[in-house]
C-alpha cells in the first residue's frame, strides 16, 4: 500500500490509482492540467462539438441534461442553456431519499431555466427489494441511484432520438486521473459497469431469494449497443472543456439562481449532495467502513489540489469528519425494514481487511494503512496553499412546502429566496 505525497489518496482507492516514481498519484498529475491547459481554446472545441447537434427545425430537443437539483446541476444547465444556447431536455432519476432542500432546488431549477423535465420514479417497493439485495451482496445502499442515474438518461436518449447527453465532470478523471482532459473521454458502458455497478449488469440481481424478477430491474438496463449506434448517442463531459472547480461554480450559481446550501453530516462541503438524506450521511459512513475514508477526505483533497488547503489541514479536516456517526440511519432502517444489528452484521462483511484490523475489541486502521500514511506524511510535498481557509456558504429557505423530517418521494417545492446564514469554516 502506498499513499500519495501530495494528496491523501492511497492506491487502494476503489476506482484504482497509480502512484508514480515521485510518489505523486495520477489524480494529482491530471489535476496539474487544470493550470496548464488553454481553457478558452478547449471551450471553442466544445462549442464546435455541440453546434452540430443543434436541432435547427426546433422539432426536437438539442440535448439531454441529466440533473438531480444538486451537485453542479445548476452550473451544467447554466452552461448548456445560457452559454451554449442549447434547448435541453432535463431528465432526473428519483433517488427516493430526497430532502426538502433538494426538492426546493429542483423546483428552482425547473422554474428559473424554463426547461422541460422528465422524472423517473421507480416503484418504492421494487427499489426496497433491490436495495436489500445490493446491500447484502455488495454492501451498497446507493446501487439503484447510480444505476438509475446512469441508465435513465441513455434510455431517454434512445426513446426520444436525442443523440447528445451532456454530463458535468467525469468522477474518475477528477478524483484518480483516469483520463487526461485532452482524451475527451465520453460516457461508456464499461465505466458504468466497472465503477458504478460493481462489475455487474442489472441482470445479476434477478433472483428468487431476493424476490427480484426480470421486470423489476428493467429501469436499470443500459440501452442495447444497436440502439446506441442507431441514434448515435454520445455522452460528453463538460469537465473536459471547462476548468472544473465545483466550489467556485456553486458560489456563482448561488448568486445567480438562489441555490440553497445546507450543512451536511459527514463533510464540510455545503453545496454537493444536499438533495439526499443519505449521501453525505449513511452512504458515506458505509464508504468509510468499507474503504477507510469518506466524502470529507474527497472534498479535502479537492480543496487541497486547488491550493485552498495545506496537506496538514486536509488531514485534520478529514479526521474531524470521518468518525461522525450518521444521523439518518434510523430513517433508512425503517424505510428498508431491517434491524440495526442486521445492518451492522452485513456491513462488517464488506470491510476491506487490508485497511481495517480488529484489535483491542474494536476496528482500527491496519498496520499497513497506518504505515503507508505515516511514510507519505513524513515525505509530504510542500503545499502551495494561498490565502485564508475557504468558507462554505449556508442558505436555507424559510417557506416550507414539504415535510422536512423524512425521505420525500415526490415533493412540490418552492423557489422563494433563501436566507443567508453563517458560513462554515472547515478548519474551525
Amino acid at each position: 500500500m502506498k499513499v500519495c505525497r501530495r494528496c491523501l489518496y492511497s492506491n487502494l482507492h476503489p476506482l484504482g490509482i497509480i502512484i508514480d516514481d515521485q510518489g505523486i498519484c495520477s489524480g494529482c498529475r491530471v489535476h496539474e492540467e487544470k493550470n496548464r491547459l488553454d481553457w478558452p481554446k478547449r471551450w471553442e472545441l466544445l462549442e464546435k462539438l455541440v453546434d452540430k447537434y443543434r436541432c435547427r427545425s426546433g422539432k426536437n430537443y438539442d440535448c439531454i441534461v441529466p440533473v438531480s437539483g444538486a451537485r453542479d446541476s445548476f452550473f451544467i444547465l447554466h452552461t448548456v442553456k445560457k452559454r451554449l444556447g442549447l434547448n435541453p431536455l432535463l431528465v432526473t432519476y428519483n433517488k427516493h431519499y430526497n430532502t426538502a432542500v433538494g426538492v426546493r432546488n429542483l423546483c428552482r431549477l425547473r422554474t428559473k431555466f424554463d426547461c422541460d423535465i422528465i422524472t423517473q420514479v421507480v416503484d418504492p417497493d421494487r427499489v426496497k427489494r433491490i436495495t436489500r439485495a445490493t446491500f447484502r451482496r455488495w454492501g451498497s445502499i446507493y446501487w439503484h441511484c447510480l444505476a438509475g442515474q446512469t441508465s435513465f438518461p441513455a434510455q431517454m436518449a434512445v426513446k426520444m432520438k436525442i443523440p447528445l447527453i451532456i454530463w458535468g465532470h467525469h468522477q474518475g478523471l477528477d478524483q484518480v486521473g483516469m483520463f487526461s482532459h485532452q482524451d475527451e473521454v465520453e460516457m461508456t458502458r464499461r465505466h458504468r459497469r466497472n465503477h458504478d455497478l460493481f462489475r455487474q449488469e442489472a441482470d445479476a440481481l434477478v433472483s428468487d431469494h431476493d424476490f427480484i424478477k426480470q421486470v423489476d430491474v428493467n429501469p436499470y438496463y443500459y440501452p442495447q449497443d444497436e440502439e446506441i449506434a442507431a441514434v448515435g448517442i454520445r455522452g460528453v463531459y463538460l469537465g473536459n472543456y471547462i476548468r472544473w472547480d465545483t466550489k467556485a461554480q456553486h458560489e456563482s450559481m448561488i448568486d445567480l439562481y438562489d441555490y440553497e446550501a445546507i450543512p451536511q453530516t459527514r463533510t464540510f462541503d455545503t453545496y454537493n449532495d444536499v438533495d439526499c438524506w443519505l449521501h453525505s450521511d449513511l452512504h458515506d459512513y458505509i464508504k468509510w467502513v468499507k474503504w477507510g475514508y469518506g466524502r470529507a477526505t474527497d472534498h479535502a483533497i479537492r480543496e487541497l489540489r486547488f491550493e485552498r488547503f495545506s496537506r496538514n489541514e486536509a488531514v485534520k479536516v478529514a479526521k474531524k469528519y470521518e468518525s461522525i456517526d450518521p444521523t439518518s440511519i434510523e430513517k433508512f432502517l425503517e424505510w428498508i425494514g431491517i434491524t440495526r444489528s442486521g445492518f451492522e452484521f452485513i456491513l462488517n462483511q464488506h470491510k476491506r481487511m487490508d485497511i481495517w484490523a480488529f484489535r483491542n475489541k474494536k476496528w482500527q486502521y491496519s498496520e499497513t494503512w497506518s504505515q503507508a500514511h505515516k511514510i507519505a506524511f513524513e515525505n509530504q510535498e510542500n503545499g502551495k496553499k494561498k490565502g485564508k481557509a475557504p468558507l462554505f456558504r449556508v442558505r436555507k429557505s424559510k417557506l416550507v412546502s414539504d415535510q422536512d423530517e423524512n425521505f420525500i418521494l415526490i415533493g412540490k417545492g418552492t423557489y422563494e429566496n433563501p436566507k443567508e446564514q453563517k458560513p462554515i469554516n472547515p478548519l474551525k
Partner: protein
Amino acid sequence: MNAPRIVGTIIVRGGLHVQSLGFKQYFPLGCPVESAKEFDRWGIDEIALILLDKNFKLNLKTISEVSSAVSVPVAAVGGVRSILDAKAYVSGGADKIGFNYSLFKNPQMVHEATKFFGQQCIIASIDIVHYKSKLQHWNYWENKFSQYNITSLIDKIKQVNVGEILLNFPEKDGSGTGMDLVAIKKIVKITQIPVIALGGVGSVKHIVNCFKSANPSAIGIGNRLSHFEHSVYLFKKGLKDIGAPVRTGVNPCYDDSMIDHDGRPINKSEKELEELNFQRIEPQMP
C-alpha cells in the same frame, strides 16, 4: 492483400488496466476483464494483455477471466521467466505468450518454449527508440539503450524462432499522434516474421497510414479504445469507408452512420433521426 488484424492492447499495472503514456506515466482505467469484454463485443480481432510491473507475473485469474469472457485469441505478454510460467499462462487460457526480458537473459528457454508450444504461440515483445537518427533496442527493465541495433536484434529474434514480433515504441506510446512508420516499415522489410505494431494510434488515419506504408500483419490500439463507446466498431467502420481492408463480420451497428477524423460518430440528420421513430431497432447477430 491480407487485412491486418486489429489488436486491442490492455496494459496491466498493479492489477489494473491502465493508460500508458510514454512508458512513464500511467492512468488507471479499471478492471482488465471489463475492458476485454467490451473490446470483444465491439469486434476486436485479438486481445493482448501486457503486464508492465517489473518482477511480477500476470495474475492467472485475470488471464483466465479474460480468456473465458472473450471469443478472440488472447496474448499474454510479460512476467514469463520460465517454461513453468509459460505453462501456467497457457493453462490459464492464454493463446500466445510474449517474452521480452527472457529473450535477452534466457534465449535458450524461449527457444525451448517455441518447441514445446509451437512457434505460433510465442511472441517476441521488443521496444524500439530512435537514438542518434538510428533505431536502437530499448532495455525496459534497466531503462536504457541496449547494445542491439535493429539488424542484430532481428538476428537474435530469428535465432529463437518466435512466431510473431510485438513492436512497441516508447516515444510514441500513448501520444495518439500517429505511428512510427519509418521504423515499422524498416523492420517489416528485414524480417519475415509477422509483426504486430503498437504505439501512437489516435485516429483511423493513423491505422490506414501504417497499413499502407508499412503493412504489418497486425496493428495494436491501446488507450484510444477506452476513450469512447464502441471504439472498435467505429475504427473498423472508418477503415471500411475508405476502402482499406478490414476484418468485418462483426455486428454492423454503424453501417448507416458517418464518423469524424477522430473515429467518433457524427450526428445523423434531423430527418434520419425522425425516421428512426418508425423503425424497429433490433439486436443483430454477428
